[in-house]
């Protein structure tokens, strides 16, 4: 069973308008590499120049923020759900 990747509205133009796409199980790094292989323009939206996740992108695996897991080394198994969200924040300060 593949990993399900939920794609936010701002990134859908880069994946042919799909709300979700599938990828093979592996580490988050592997999954992102597979996505970028299939949809090259996603790369600059997800990763910084040194290959790290952009600070304005939050990535959750089964509702857990990967920053509190093992980051790009976090493993995704069969049927896991990967959610990519543009960060939400702000305030008067």
């Amino acid at each position: 069973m593949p990993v399900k990747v939920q794609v936010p509205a701002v990134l859908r133009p880069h994946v042919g308008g799909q709300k979700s796409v599938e990828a093979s199980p592996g580490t988050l790094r592997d999954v992102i590499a597979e996505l970028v292989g299939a949809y090259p323009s996603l790369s600059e939206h997800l990763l910084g120049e040194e290959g790290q996740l952009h600070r304005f992108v939050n990535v959750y695996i089964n509702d857990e923020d990967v920053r509190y897991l093992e980051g790009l080394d976090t493993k995704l198994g069969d049927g896991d759900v990967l959610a990519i969200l543009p960060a939400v924040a702000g305030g008067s300060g």
Partner: protein
Amino acid sequence: MKTFVVPKDIYDGMVAHCLEGMPNEACGFIGGKVGGNESVATKLYPMTNAAASPVFYRPDDREMLAALKDMDENGLDVASIFHSHVATRAYPSPTDIREAHYPDAVFVIVSFENRDDPYAKGYLIHKQDWRDATGQVEEVELVVE
């Protein structure tokens, strides 16, 4: 001017949630339908401000993910992302603009500049690229009915 139609119970619920959050900023989402010239609010999703700050907000991750899942299951868009300014006017701050990554959502700000008379205004924040730190602010008329 574009409009954002907000039923009165949703508007009142949003202001009440912001009041409960004082003295910190409060936040949440409003699900609904996003249209070209008019968006419509249909469901309020109050959230905890994980930053617990009077000058910054960041919705609790789990509450936000649950809200997004509920919207997805009910065919709703993220019509609005709201938060309060506890002591300043209802206009996007440089922080609000820098952190705005949802081009179709109306950013609603509830101001408690005058504590006895809170008011809300809505804005779209347009960016050339969604990751830009700066953008153009367009006011959206809030129609409370």
